[in-house]
């Protein structure tokens, strides 16, 4: 039974096209892979918006969108069409370049982060040898898009929203990084495919018992904060700041930020699933003997990611919003020291080989 093979379907496609058509084929291959990812980006974004609204409605004993299409499935597509047709307005004397560059920084950051996530066995655009680190590095560039957007809007609420968002993302990146490091200590590799390969007998959340559980809790909290979701949605606290850094964006400008936010949530869930729950591996290997292995991998991956996303949505509609001092206290006085101690604990466990 081979669980991880070295085939990468995207790389194979590009190689095949290169053999057939030379340099033009290679470029065509890159374009096709990029188009697949862009399509996934748009579809997943729209679907997540629908799911979010539906889940929110059920938590509040409402029905949610249920008129357009079966179960309201086409609601977000209708919304997207409406946003496309909207007039693009903005503030007077805004810094036009920064204002429009902002979403061109936020969207690629989310899209590039998506490219190193293994959706299934060999379904991964680029299996970097530093995969996990790459995702956290790229996501830190997205912060700048928010800061530029907040500044470029020439609106005090946008500016404060952008500042808060930057502050929050930088603070919580530390905790998320430490939680990831704890698992890296156990895996001994930063490569996504290698991390999954290590979990074929046991998922890391079970294998690393206590420190892995603590790391998971820290990662989920930090991930929620990094994607600016409630209870950490001060950057767009509607009672104080309108819509935060994207108050002054209309039409597609707003939609881009909205999509990127949901894709960031997807990335955080996917990283959590890859690090703690074995990525695309089937639980107890129950589908390993069936044909169409990559397809089953994708099925398991999306089932697990859906679970994580549901958890994040559950948070959003359960907890009240934090105050800014509570938010900073939580990070610097609790999560960071606990994360540091947790790394030491994990190092001791790995050194004496007490992991399961």
């Amino acid at each position, binding site marked *: 039974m081979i669980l991880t093979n070295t085939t990468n379907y995207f790389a194979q496609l590009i190689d095949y096209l290169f053999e057939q058509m030379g*340099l033009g084929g*290679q470029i065509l291959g890159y374009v096709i892979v990029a188009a697949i990812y862009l399509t996934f980006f748009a579809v997943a974004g729209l679907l997540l918006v629908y799911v979010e609204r539906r889940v929110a409605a059920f938590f509040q004993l409402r029905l949610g969108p249920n008129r357009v299409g079966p179960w309201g499935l086409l609601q977000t597509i209708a919304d997207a069409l409406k946003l496309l047709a909207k007039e693009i307005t903005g503030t007077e004397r805004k810094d036009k370049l920064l204002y429009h560059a902002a979403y061109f920084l936020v969207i690629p950051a989310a899209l590039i982060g998506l490219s190193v996530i293994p959706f299934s066995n060999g379904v991964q655009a680029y299996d970097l040898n*530093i995969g996990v680190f790459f995702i*956290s*590095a790229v996501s*830190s560039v997205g912060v*700048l898009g928010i800061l*530029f957007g907040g500044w*470029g809007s*020439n609106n005090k609420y946008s500016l404060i929203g952008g500042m808060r968002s930057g502050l929050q993302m930088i603070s919580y990146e530390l905790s998320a990084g430490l939680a990831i490091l704890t698992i890296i200590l156990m895996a001994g590799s930063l490569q996504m495919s290698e991390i999954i390969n290590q979990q074929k007998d046991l998922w890391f959340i079970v294998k690393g018992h206590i420190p892995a559980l603590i790391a998971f809790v820290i990662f989920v909290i930090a991930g929620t904060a990094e994607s600016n979701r409630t209870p950490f949605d001060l950057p767009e606290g509607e009672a104080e700041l309108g819509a935060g850094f994207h108050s002054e964006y209309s039409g597609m400008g707003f939609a881009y930020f909205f999509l990127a936010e949901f894709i960031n949530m997807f990335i955080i869930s996917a990283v959590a699933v890859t690090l703690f729950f074995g990525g695309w591996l089937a639980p107890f290997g129950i589908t390993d003997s069936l044909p169409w292995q990559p397809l089953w991998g994708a099925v398991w991956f999306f089932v697990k990611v859906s679970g994580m996303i549901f958890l994040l949505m559950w948070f959003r509609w359960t907890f009240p919003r934090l105050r800014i001092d509570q938010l900073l206290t939580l990070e610097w006085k609790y999560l960071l020291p606990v994360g540091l101690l947790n790394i030491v604990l994990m190092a001791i466990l790995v050194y004496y080989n007490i992991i399961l």
Partner: protein
Amino acid sequence: MEKIMFYLLAAIIVIFAYMSVTSRKLYRATMYLLFVLLAVSGLYFMMEYNFMGAVQLSVYAGGIMVLFVYAVMLTDKIGEPLRSIPAKWKILPVVVTVGTALLAIYAIYSYQGISADNEATVTTVEQVGEKLLSYEDGGFVLPFEVISILLLAAMIGAIVIAKAKKLVNQEKN
């Protein structure tokens, strides 16, 4: 393909570096600088030195640039364009820049030891970590420790600066 990518990245670096220096809007200058840093990390990725590329992204693009953005917000009159510099002040920077560039080109061409390796080797994180903590020849443990002490001192300094007012007030009371 590699050649095209290299020239594309090099063009981005040169153009945006120039724009970042000459831009009269401070906030835009930081954005141009961001593009320069991103293109440099692109060069690292092209050399298959992925770790360095990601470090460039997270430290420079993610860390230093955010610091710059916050620092720029603290400066005076950021919304208005900076005043232009009189021509006589421009001569010295131009002379220094051109001189440095000529010196660098001379140094590169007079150095005979470089032989370009056609095979790109992937540098792994393990190699970086082992070199960083090795005591042997070519090990980097001393610089590593020195930097650690420097960072610790900087952190303590930051705490002292942040708490100075509070401490003074306490003493007065």
